[in-house]
């Protein structure tokens, strides 16, 4: 295994210039990812430079002190502007209900209270909706992976014309506005007795995440050298066996990334949930939207629930950020 890993593909950022252009810039980025994953030899060149020129610009890096200072200030401003809305959400969730709609509005709570959280979480159906959201997301993610991994492998490894057609079909699927297929899907589900169930919603969510999953997995598979499976089949493995036992472990990181995206796509989805769920399978985004009633703007409960719904996901992201970065760049590039 080690010998394969240290093949020329894995090295250096200048892989871009001596790689045959196959599909846009997938390969160079893939190699960049692999480099990052293996402890960032990108850092290596910098260390080689003499200490007194520590701030020597690497390519695009800013060299001058004053420029760097200015840039840091810009970054700080950007961070504040960018992060402020969510902070405001958090602060508002700790205000008393009447304080949330104060005129003029304030940033910090006059008095910190957990009333909104109690109201939001204690409301009938809210905790159930969390369970539904989680359930739907898990099922949808699994479904997406089970379908996408073999398909992506088939497309990348065996460049058949049907594979190309399939990619085009996936692209078209991506373009379909959910509102167009939401009602027919709901109708289909109820005609088989699956109206208002998590499985129905999961299927709908999978239609959203499947194209992206296929693309992501394609990119990851592209980055795996064929020698691996060849070695395995020479040793007597069937093609399927080679896939399962050899290739998949190598792209396990990629599978994790794809899983994260599929999960997020389902967790945050609103329209299908609105159209297809009623009582039993209602998910939290719909519940959050429902706080906007005709007889009151219950900002307090809404922000509290939104905070509870978003924070675990944000924390998860920050923990897995490296993988997510890798996935995003590949997914976007492959298109």
């Amino acid at each position: 295994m080690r010998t394969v890993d240290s093949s020329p593909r894995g090295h250096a950022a200048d892989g871009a210039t001596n790689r045959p252009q196959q599909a846009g810039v997938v390969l160079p980025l893939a190699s960049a990812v692999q480099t990052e994953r293996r402890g960032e030899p990108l850092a290596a060149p910098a260390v080689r430079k003499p200490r007194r020129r520590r701030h020597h610009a690497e390519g695009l890096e800013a060299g001058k002190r004053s420029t760097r200072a200015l840039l840091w200030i810009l970054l700080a401003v950007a961070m504040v502007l960018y992060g402020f809305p969510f902070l405001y959400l958090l602060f508002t969730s700790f205000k008393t209900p009447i304080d949330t709609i104060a005129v003029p509005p304030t940033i910090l709570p006059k008095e910190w209270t957990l009333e909104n959280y109690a109201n939001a979480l204690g409301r009938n159906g809210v905790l159930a909706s969390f369970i539904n959201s989680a359930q739907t997301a898990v099922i949808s993610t699994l479904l997406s992976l089970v379908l996408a991994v073999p398909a992506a492998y088939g497309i990348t490894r065996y460049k058949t014309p049907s594979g190309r057609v399939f990619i085009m079909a996936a692209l078209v699927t991506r373009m379909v506005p959910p509102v167009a297929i939401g009602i027919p899907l709901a109708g289909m589900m109820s005609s088989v007795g699956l109206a208002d169930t998590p499985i129905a919603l999961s299927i709908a969510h999978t239609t959203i995440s499947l194209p992206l999953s296929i693309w992501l997995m394609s990119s990851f598979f592209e980055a795996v050298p064929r020698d691996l499976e060849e070695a395995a089949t020479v040793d007597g493995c069937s093609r399927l066996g080679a896939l399962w036992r050899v290739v998949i472990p190598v792209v396990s990181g990629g599978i994790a990334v794809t899983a994260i995206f599929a999960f997020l796509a389902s967790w945050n989805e609103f329209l299908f949930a609105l159209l297809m769920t009623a009582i039993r399978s209602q998910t939290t985004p719909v519940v959050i939207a429902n706080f906007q009633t005709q007889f009151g703007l219950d900002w307090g409960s809404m922000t509290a629930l939104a905070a509870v719904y978003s924070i675990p996901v944000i924390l998860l992201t920050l923990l897995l950020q490296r993988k997510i970065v890798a996935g995003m760049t590949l997914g976007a590039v492959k298109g």
Partner: protein
Amino acid sequence: MRISDRRFALFLMTPAALFLAVFVAYPLFRLVADSFFKISPIAGGPRDFVGFENYFRAFASEAFMGAGWRTLAYTAVVVTLEFALGLGMALLFTTLGRKSQVWRTVFLYPLMIAPIVAGLLWKFLMIDNFGLIGTLLHQAGILNDPNQIGWLSDPDIVLFSVAIPDIWLTTSFMCLVLFAGLQNIPGDLIEAARLDGARAPALLFRIILPLLRPVIAVALVVRGIDAARAFDTILIQTNGGPQSASETMSLLIYRTMIRFGDPGLASAMGTIYLLAMLGVAFFAVATIWRPGKDN
């Protein structure tokens, strides 16, 4: 027992293909089929074949044409700003180097927020009388009165206001993608250009952007499609108003189908919309992508 490679590939792709056929192709087929009928909103009601009448009605309706232009405008605004801001942030992170990695991570967080939450949040920030943005701008002396700008109540600017949460949510994505692209630009190239006396603007436009073209192309197309389909954020902020000034195609189709109970007309609108998106996307892919391939 060894089936050919081609068969094996097909076999691998079949489950996904079947899934898409049943759960995407078939509903789309139903959509197109429905567009030729006048359908009663209550189940079991009449369903009359009307040929292309729904299509004529759609093109004749001011709401539909208006929604079309609005969707175009919305997409243009969102993608442009998202790209500009994303590029700016990506350049910022690149020029600041490794030290800013922590912040790069933090910058990711809006991607994890549900669009519906973002929409509610920004509605809360921009709403008249209760919104914080007006108050802050007023306190900073930029506005005479906290409610001087009717972010969500002025029909002339509401389309741009509802774009804000969308831009806020997706700038991170653009930034990431462009950052990754920037990472791949060989340092020697930049050094060489610098030695030749190139200043920052020239560096950016003559070298960096052309090199990033494939990445930019894909990102723009992908994000363009997503922006055109935007629904959650706009629905929750303004529900299409005031005076339909923020009603994009997705919202119009939703309303027509569910609120006004005209599934036939809504299906026709949906079909036209889908065809338009396909056309634009393929055109974009053909023009932007092709040249990029010959890098």
